[in-house]
């Protein structure tokens, strides 16, 4: 027991002597989220593993982050209050509330006009087809081209999917 303690103390002194005199250089760039995630999952090449662990040896912030992340990954998922998810969902293409009028930007106006024109054409073609008693064929290429010119990334007033 005593011998183990003495040996351990000697080992510690060896480490300290090395630590205080190693020419390590700058610890390098902190790993990005993708690299760190890959490291945490063990889905990493040997070279990248060495790079990250070399960085961890010289970057106390990243080492602390690693410890905390390991404990976070063991957590069970939480029960999220509905208001939190609803609030997050509203961040992307929120549905206008009743009576809400949203001014359209220039691009949004063009999109709206473009889809309105496309809808009008389809409606007209359908009516014409019924009147003629023949099958109406929509030019899918033109419809797709219209969609490319007016990509739907803003408020979708016409859902033509």
């Amino acid at each position: 027991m005593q011998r183990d303690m003495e040996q351990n103390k000697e080992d510690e002194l060896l480490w300290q002597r090395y630590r205080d005199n190693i020419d390590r250089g700058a610890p390098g760039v902190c790993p990005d989220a993708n690299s760190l995630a890959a490291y945490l999952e063990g889905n990493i090449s040997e070279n990248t593993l060495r790079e990250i662990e070399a960085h961890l040896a010289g970057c106390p912030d990243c080492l602390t982050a690693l410890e905390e992340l390991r404990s976070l990954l063991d957590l069970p998922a939480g029960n999220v209050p509905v208001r939190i998810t609803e609030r997050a969902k509203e961040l992307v293409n929120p549905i206008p509330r009743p009576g809400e009028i949203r001014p359209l930007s220039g691009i949004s106006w063009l999109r709206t006009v473009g889809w309105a024109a496309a809808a009008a054409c389809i409606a007209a073609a359908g009516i014409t087809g019924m009147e003629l008693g023949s099958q109406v064929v929509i030019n899918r290429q033109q419809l797709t081209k219209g969609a490319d010119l007016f990509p739907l990334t803003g408020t979708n007033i016409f859902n033509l999917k």
Partner: protein
Amino acid sequence: MIKERGRSVIIGLNLKKLVRGDRKTWNEFVDRFSPVIYAAVWKIFRTHLTDVNDCDVEDAVQGVFLRLIRDDFRLLKSYNPRRASPVTWLTIVTRSTAIDCLRRRKLATVSLDAQGPDISAPRRPTGTATVKIIPPGILSPRQELVLKLIFDRGMDAGEIAGLLGVSPQTIRSTRHKALVKLRKFFSSKD
């Protein structure tokens, strides 16, 4: 993650549609991953604060989602599903965002000095170089890291194994080999 026909899929979600702002896909994403984000924020706040407020947690969770979509989904577009699962990646993003929230609010009672990696851009630590006499390469990165964790942080083999994702036996073996190298190096110098 499943890759099919050139599209990347996060457990059934189309990543390309997600970062194009498809509302349905976004809603599914929120439903699927908000429990992970929420739990992580709670844990981080409990670690760093004496008094955790529901509103603070809610704002931090919203902050995570905002960060993902800001600048035309820049951060979400940076996610590489081939390298890791979305849960792990999102946990890293959540931790970083939560720490930023705490720092901004200046509510911490425990040290916030350890921020961790900057997920938005690579950064290089600053500092002045001092003269060192031991050249690099005596120990491998893992050997150095293991000795640091044992002697500087007082961790045992089991804890280090969990941290680095290896077995305790690997840690003990790494420790032994590292110390043999150091003894050999210093005995040749002395």
